[in-house]
């Protein structure tokens, strides 16, 4: 059931990204190009999505649990740190160069265009690289924590 829900949600998401124009790099760059002929159309995509998610998320997250799961899987971190800002800035730079963000890049894989597939492969490699860095850092922190105290370990 959960697999079916994910497939349906992904399908709707993919149609939405296509209809909205997010899968056209020229349009994305035109949206980001404040210095030229600015095309603000894509603001309506995020605006339209938020118009729906803002009230429904608020309502859904007040429920005890989702319909087919025991609990909601919601990020718990709440602090703005340097990783968040630097990582987002890097993402923005890559988005500005190619005009593709992860969702539309995956959607565009259906075309089989070699350059799109290369973008996705490079993106997966970049994700893997970052997760390796984070994993190493996490292991170092674990090793540095005093082993005798499980309380410290659980906090790190």
């Amino acid at each position, binding site marked *: 059931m959960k697999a079916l829900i994910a497939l349906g949600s992904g399908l709707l998401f993919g149609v939405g990204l296509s209809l909205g124009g997010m899968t056209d790099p020229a349009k994305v760059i035109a949206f980001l190009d404040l210095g030229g002929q600015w095309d603000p159309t894509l603001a309506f995509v995020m605006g339209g999505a938020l118009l729906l998610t803002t009230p429904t998320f608020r309502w859904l997250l007040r429920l005890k649990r989702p319909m087919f799961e025991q609990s909601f899987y919601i990020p718990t971190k709440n602090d703005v740190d340097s990783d968040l800002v630097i990582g987002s800035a890097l*993402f923005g730079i890559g988005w500005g160069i190619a005009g593709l963000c992860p969702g539309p*890049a995956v959607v565009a894989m259906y075309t089989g265009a070699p350059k799109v597939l290369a973008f996705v492969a*490079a993106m997966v490699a970049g994700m893997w690289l970052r*997760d390796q860095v984070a994993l190493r850092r996490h292991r170092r922190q674990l090793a540095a924590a005093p082993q005798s105290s499980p309380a410290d370990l659980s906090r790190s």
Partner: protein
Amino acid sequence: MSVVINPSDWLYALGGGLMIGLAAAVLLGLSGRIAGISSIMAGMLANLFPERRLPEVSWRAMFLLGLILGGLLFATLFPQLVQQRLQVGWGGMIAAGLIVGYGTRMGSGCTSGHGVCGIARTSRRSIVATATFMAAGMLTVFVIRHVLHLS
């Protein structure tokens, strides 16, 4: 700066946005998951390594499959509405892909997870992330187009 907007385009954009929002709400309400594409991809990637295996592999693969099928379905039904004008060559695509992958993991999300889902939860982190990647994207395009004149 001049502003150009094609009058029918913004309706498509709004319609597309509403569908994206509905898709995210369905996933959250039924399965309790955030429709953040970079995190879903990374979750699948992590499952390739036994030490970091997460429970529930299949829903992530199915969501990504749905995305691709969604693109295919739309292009089949409305070929006249689909445009895909790539802006850079091989080097640019590969470099951008690497940076996007690395950055979205470092910053814990992309346009979908932070921009659509996180802002809806009024997450402070997501609001900061979205403002940052929008600004960085605009600055990058400005430098490429109007300072370096590369395109």
